[in-house]
């Protein structure tokens, strides 16, 4: 609707990808209904295997060629290396922030962390790194947060509303780690800028990273990543959130529930949401019940002599 109201016409360009059906159709609308002069597109392969990597790399090269032609610029290896170094600066700050969340008393809440991750995506890099440095410095002295009712891992797709995470955390449990598209899952390890082919290095880092559910055939890896994170974060449970109408993550929650029947790896709460609306009451009620369940389970374990 913002497109149709002309709110994006100030842009010089936009780039879309075949991440999902919705984004493909949004791209159709962007192309036909805006005055944006440049439209780029990435057809990202649907399975992260080596034989498809070349296609992805070629897509990036085509996109670069499009930029160069339209904007009359040149993107060479040196510029690519510089961009990698800049992105690495962002990555190291986010890695530091995520590490602080894993402490026994996390230095920041899940909502705060998500806000930081979103800021990393939207702010100019130099502004972000400056603010992040100041934040990290302040966080060192911040007393850690209590999570009296439990530690949670939040997993799911697109979520750019810290208020949603606030609603989850309002019930006394903290989101100490996440695998969200705009959250910790988006944070790569620093990429080596000094390779002979910096574009390929960046492409490889993105293509083979912990994937979104739009990647077919990669659920086993996503499951391993999730269970390892639950372990690392010493989490008591997992909250899964999905935007209604998101099919790939719809398949994902089915598969997570199926695995849990076999492995009982962690308690799970599955939430559905609509974009732009935070149904605080509903979320609080569901999370409250879930957190109570976690507390009861911990108490029962303690009573039976097991670790809490």
């Amino acid at each position, binding site marked *: 609707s913002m497109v149709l109201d002309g709110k994006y016409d100030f842009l010089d360009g936009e780039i879309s990808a075949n991440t999902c059906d919705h984004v493909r159709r949004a791209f159709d609308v962007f192309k036909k209904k805006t005055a944006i002069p440049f439209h780029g597109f990435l057809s990202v392969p649907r399975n992260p295997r080596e034989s498809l990597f070349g296609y992805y790399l070629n897509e990036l090269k085509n996109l670069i060629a499009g930029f160069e032609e339209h904007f009359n610029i040149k993107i060479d290896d040196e510029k690519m290396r510089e961009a990698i170094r800049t992105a690495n600066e962002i990555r190291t700050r986010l890695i530091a922030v995520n590490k602080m969340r894993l402490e026994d008393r996390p230095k920041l809440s899940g909502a705060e962390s998500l806000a930081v991750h979103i800021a990393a995506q939207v702010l100019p890099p130099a502004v972000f790194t400056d603010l992040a440095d100041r934040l990290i410095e302040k966080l060192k002295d911040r007393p850690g947060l209590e999570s009296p009712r439990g530690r949670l891992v939040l997993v799911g797709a697109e979520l750019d509303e810290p208020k949603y995470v606030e609603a989850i955390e309002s019930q006394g449990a903290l989101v100490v780690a996440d695998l969200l598209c705009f959250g910790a899952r988006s944070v790569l390890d620093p990429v080596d800028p000094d390779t002979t082919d910096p574009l390929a290095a960046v492409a490889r880092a993105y293509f083979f990273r912990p994937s979104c559910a739009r990647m077919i055939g990669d659920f086993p890896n996503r499951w391993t990543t999730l269970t390892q994170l639950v372990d690392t974060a010493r989490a008591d449970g997992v909250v899964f959130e*999905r935007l209604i109408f998101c099919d790939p993550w719809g398949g994902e929650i089915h598969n997570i529930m199926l695995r849990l029947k076999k492995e009982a790896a962690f308690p799970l709460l599955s939430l559905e949401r609509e974009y732009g609306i935070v149904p605080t009451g509903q979320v609080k009620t569901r999370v409250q019940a879930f957190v109570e369940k976690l507390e009861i389970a911990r108490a029962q374990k303690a009573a039976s002599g097991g670790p809490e």
Partner: protein
Amino acid sequence: MNRYDVINMPEWREIFQNLPVLRHFFTGDPDSHGIIELTRGISIYLEKMLHHVDSGHPFVWFNLGFNPELIFALGDVCPITIESLGVMHNLLGDIDTSLDFIDSAEAAGLPADCCSADKIGVGAMQRGLFPPPACTIGINTPCDAQVAATQVMAEISQVPFFAIDVPYYHNDETVRHVAMQLKELVAFLEEHTGRRMNYDRLRETCKLSNTTTETLWEWLEWRKQVPLTQSSKLAAMTLIIQILFTGTQEGVDIAKGLLREARERTERGERFFEERVRAVWYQDPMWTDIQMYDWFERELGLTVPVDIFGFYANEGLIDTATPETMLYGLARKMVACHPMARQFRGDMDMYIRDFMHLVEGWNADCCIFAGHIACKHAWGGIGLFREALRRADIPLLVFEFDMFDPRITPYDDIYFEVERFVNEIVLPRKQRG
């Protein structure tokens, strides 16, 4: 596992019991070559499946965006489309069974807003209704619901899984990219089925596939005739043929049956009703009750000469000269011709362009967008589609329903919408000339 293990499952027993009854019923009209061949083809398909079960042959599951020629070419390997049993229940059996599939898929966590085509596949797999596979194949077309279903398929089956990536673009590079993956797929299938690809057999399979395709093209030409003399409900048969029968003699026979019927009825000038309005049904058919099309014809004089499931683009046949040309041709079939995959995997331009081709070629008066509610890539483009039809001055009916779940929109509501559209919009326009 043996055939009786399959037949004794209630969900299969119903199909095996109903199919002979329906075959007998349809032979009551000996000129209904299309339906007669289709029911015969399904009988053969099921018998082959049971033979494979008895013989302990490997099975390969896949989703409906894939065409099974490569699997047939391996010899005694049985392809299973995971949506097939639910579709058979809609066409031949009790739709309550496919509703049970939907409900159990949702109960297992697949969200209600996912496509019911995938829910019927997931529900059938959950119940262990298909012989266990040696491996599975998932293709990302036509849509994200298939992306979800293929991953559920991989997880439920816990056997090696091969993903085929079909890019966004309509160009030769896309076809070559998919052909490259089909070559990888051959090695994968050989490894996990224990069978060797026989390229001579593939050649014969592709020749049958070509014959089927050419026959379907010819059949579709006959459906351009005004008035339409062959039943509207047969319009969607192309997709069923391409998913279940392509590369087999049954596929050829069904296509020839459809063609023969269309030609004979047209040449005889048979008319059982007065055709008043011709519509391109440009979305999913009403699988839960395809007799609805009979009602449209009799009560409204509304015919559907072609729909999106029936149209098969002429992008070329499979060149059977070499293994590489065959893989290329098979790739092109799946990405450039396969209904829905062709129209929806890229931008809306292809969808709109194909519609304009259909409305002109098949002499249609209007478009019915029967909006399957979970079809996001269709609904996502409805604004652009609507605008295009407005510019072209083509009347458009848009309504919501679910192609496998009649609980979403009652039949009465659909009747009402279509009747009003035909009588109050299309006919007055036609009469005004």
